[in-house]
């Protein structure tokens, strides 16, 4: 968090004396959190935009170093609070790679993880669409999308126990099988989804006001997105079909049929359409996973009491289970020394963890590659030359989450 304003460049001050510095935020409703943007403007035209971040810095990476491998995951979920499961997913995969147990994760656990990750992706895009609509003055979109999101949060609560931060994924699998009645509720969501998407598309996609606000606003060429290190839907809206789920498949994504929506225009409207298409592709994955889950039964946690706590029901019956449980809860487990870079496709782009272990029972270093931070940084290149009103559209179109930008 920087208290001082960005110094004005001398040539701008001298230009007719018309330049003015405007601080947008950090408490501005269109900034989707606590983002301050120092704007140099001439009239309504942006000459320079310098986002100031750090207002939500909570030291998550430092905290992780003082937690067990298992409890650090609780912190990690708090970064991208709109897609907590995706963070936990990536962290669990990274630690599993360090432990060398990637191939021992039960198939049912992998399917449940993919199911939750895709549900979270839809929920996260629902928030983006709802709040993005509010930015443009389309208030009613918010109610449609949050209704859909609520159904997904209900499912998260059923499986993980909490609406916002289910903490359902664990190193070695997931915490318990899906509860009774889950399939029916999932079926209800799958049945509801196409109609709701039809509504949203009818409301927005061909809407002339929305098109006027979004088309040709914040154009990023393929050269620029690569230069600014943009990933996720914003990258694919510029025509580069890079999706970590396809490029470096994990957790069984290679066995699922789905397309990677891309657009060529690279403007805010293209990013909007890519995300809408992505929601439908996610639903396609969810349907396949739902059918597979009916056939694949069995454990949802690795059968290794050094990594996973023993099942609760065995603790009262077996001395060894009790000892393992005590050791797991008081000392955690050790991870062999080494470092790993694990990437996953979060709703915002390539979410990756660079994790270092020194062989102890706590992570030595958990470095996040925050997709939101790099995507948001690109505003510096995107905003100049546009109007202030368009800046609001651009912030919405890169979909930053400040828990992740500031960590």
């Amino acid at each position, binding site marked *: *968090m*920087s*208290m*001082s304003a*960005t110094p004005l460049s001398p040539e701008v001050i001298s230009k007719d004396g018309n330049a003015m510095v405007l601080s947008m935020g950090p408490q501005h409703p269109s900034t989707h959190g606590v983002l301050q943007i120092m704007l140099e403007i001439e009239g309504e035209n942006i000459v320079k935009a310098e986002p100031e*971040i*750090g207002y939500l*810095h909570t*030291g998550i*990476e*430092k905290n992780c170093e*003082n937690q*067990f491998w298992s409890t650090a995951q609780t912190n990690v979920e708090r970064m991208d609070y709109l897609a907590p499961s995706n963070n936990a997913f990536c962290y669990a995969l990274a630690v599993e*790679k*360090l432990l060398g147990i990637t191939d021992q994760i039960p198939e049912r656990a992998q399917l449940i993880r993919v199911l939750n990750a895709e549900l979270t992706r839809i929920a996260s895009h629902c928030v983006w669409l709802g709040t993005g609509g509010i930015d443009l003055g389309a208030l009613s979109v918010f109610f449609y999308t949050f209704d859909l999101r609520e159904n997904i949060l209900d499912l998260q609560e059923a499986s993980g126990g909490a609406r916002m931060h289910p903490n359902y994924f664990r190193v070695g699998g997931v915490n318990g099988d899906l509860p009774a009645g889950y399939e029916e509720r999932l079926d209800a969501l799958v049945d509801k989804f196409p109609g709701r998407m039809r509504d949203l598309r009818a409301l927005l996609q061909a809407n002339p006001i929305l098109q006027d606000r979004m088309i040709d606003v914040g154009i990023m060429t*393929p*050269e620029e997105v*690569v*230069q*600014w*290190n943009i990933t996720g839907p914003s990258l694919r809206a510029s*025509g*580069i*079909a*890079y*999706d970590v789920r*396809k*490029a*470096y498949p994990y957790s069984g994504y290679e066995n699922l049929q789905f397309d*990677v929506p891309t657009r*060529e225009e690279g403007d805010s409207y293209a990013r909007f359409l890519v995300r809408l298409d992505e929601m439908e592709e996610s639903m396609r994955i969810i349907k396949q996973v739902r059918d597979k889950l009916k056939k694949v039964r069995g454990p949802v946690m690795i059968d290794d009491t050094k990594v996973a706590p023993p099942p609760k029901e065995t603790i009262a019956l077996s001395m060894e289970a009790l000892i393992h449980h005590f050791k797991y809860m*008081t*000392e*955690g487990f*050790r991870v*062999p*020394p*080494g*470092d*790993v*870079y694990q990437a996953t496709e979060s709703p915002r782009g*390539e979410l*990756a963890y*660079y994790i*270092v*272990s*020194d*062989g*102890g*029972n*706590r992570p*030595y270093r958990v*470095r996040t*590659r925050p997709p939101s931070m*790099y995507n948001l*940084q*690109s505003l*510096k290149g995107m905003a100049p030359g546009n109007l202030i009103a368009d800046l609001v559209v651009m912030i919405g179109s890169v979909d930053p989450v400040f828990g992740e930008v*500031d*960590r």
Partner: protein
Amino acid sequence: MPSTQSPPLLGGAIDPTAVRPNIDDAIIERTDPAHVRERLAQLKADGYTMLLDVGGVDYPQRTPRFDVVYHLLKMPVRKATLAEVGRPQRLRLLCGVPAENTTVPTATDLWKSADWAEREIYDLFGITFDGHPDMRRIQMPNDWEGYPLRKDYPLRGPARERSPRPSFALKSNVNAGTPPSGRTLEALQAQIAKVRASGDGERSKS
């Protein structure tokens, strides 16, 4: 929090990156601040077009003490289909930075995306990037003391370390400071004893 319940099990690996298990996630290269600039420029020319991430790690026992970790990706710089992107090669460049001279040349002129990442490393590790256009703190306030992600930085911050909040669990800690209410443990205990002696507990009118 576990840190107060059980002692940490130290792994003891002074340089974990040297003993890593066989994980196939990237090509790994090592370099030092004198050569990192040249190597990055060369890699960019070789097709590593995207600077995925720049991070830092602190190994206090090791020489050189810090690692600045670059992750690069061979991404096509044009419109590309799924098949054309394929499985782009990833590369990890570890740049060891000695504790005596924590300066690394910047990569911002090669990749604009290095800007905030380098500022963050400066903010949290105290490694300066020579030639960076705007070397300010980014996450912490400008007047912050110390570099939080260094291993010798206390978890709760230096200010709290100097004047710890007294723990009422241990009587010996009471002298460490007066609690915010201004009431000492003895005063509280005396009040509790008075209420108990009066016999009517919470209904006391005192």
